[in-house]
């Protein structure tokens, strides 16, 4: 009956490869994400991030905020997360991060989205099946205000070596 579903199935692969990352290519990444208070409390407490701005409402108000501030490292990991299917899901280590700036506070209820551009790429001498790609990523809130910007560098599989 359904016994041949495996034989009939065609893999829908995810992610792009080295050859896809032409310098200057622009990406608008999928999904977006509204960050809520639960996300923020969970993230800040799990990562032992002990600045009360991120989990004490009265403390945040005393510092000029109307709500608790979303932990900037949750803002970073979320904007990064939105880029992964396009950039790094097909494999390759996350090597480094440069020039990350937090540009304005994010509050619970804000919706983040991500855009990026390919900055540069080169072949890897140590890993012939891979290349090294650097992207510049920006995260925006629902008012299109930039909240974060960074450059990240990854090893990326080459088409010749993939799967």
């Amino acid at each position, binding site marked *: 009956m359904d016994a041949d579903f495996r034989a009939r199935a065609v893999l829908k692969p*995810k992610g792009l490869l080295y050859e896809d990352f032409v310098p200057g290519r622009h990406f608008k990444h999928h*999904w977006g*994400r509204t960050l809520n208070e639960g*996300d923020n409390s*969970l*993230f800040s407490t*799990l*990562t*032992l*991030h*002990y*600045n*009360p*701005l991120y989990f*004490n409402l*009265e*403390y945040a108000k*005393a*510092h000029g905020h109307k709500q608790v501030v979303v932990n*900037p*490292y*949750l803002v*970073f*990991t*979320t904007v*990064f*997360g*939105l880029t*992964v*299917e396009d950039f*790094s*899901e097909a*494999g390759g*280590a*996350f*090597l*480094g*991060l*440069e*020039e*990350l*700036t*937090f540009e304005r*506070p994010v509050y619970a209820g804000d919706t983040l989205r991500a855009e990026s551009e390919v900055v540069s790429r080169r072949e890897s001498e140590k890993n012939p099946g891979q290349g090294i790609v650097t992207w510049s990523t920006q995260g925006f809130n629902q008012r299109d205000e930039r909240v974060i910007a960074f450059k990240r560098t990854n090893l990326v599989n080459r088409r010749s070596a993939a799967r």
Partner: protein
Amino acid sequence: MNPAEFTGDDNYFEDFVPGAVIRHARGKTVGEIDNVLITNLVLNTAQQHFNQQLMEQTRFGERITFGGVTLSLIIGLASEDTSENALAELGVDKIRFRTPVHHGDTLYAFTEVLGVKDAERPDAGEVHFRHWGVNQKDELVFEGERRVLVKRRPRAGK
């Protein structure tokens, strides 16, 4: 409510002296609750972080912790001593991931004060840190720099 009563008194802007190196007191053993939960929470779709069977077929043999989690944990481990009295995180730079982190590894953080400078607002200053993260085998797993806007010590009675 006096906000100053919620935070320590040894980590205001004036307390950071360039060249000082801090060994932070706590470590954290990284588990699924850190890596898989946060990776999934932030929509990071790379299954190298959450598909154990896939990773058993690779030279790693097991899931690898998302670098964003490693970074957040090292800064978290350093946070009480470096930014409990911060008004804002300004940025990070020169971040490198040196060794993969696996479930069961225990991370520790170290910090050097690289520099301090005045900020635009008079009640705070900017502190420039270098952080290192090491595992239970004392291998370097993470290093990078970070800038934080830290409150100056409030005057008495304020």
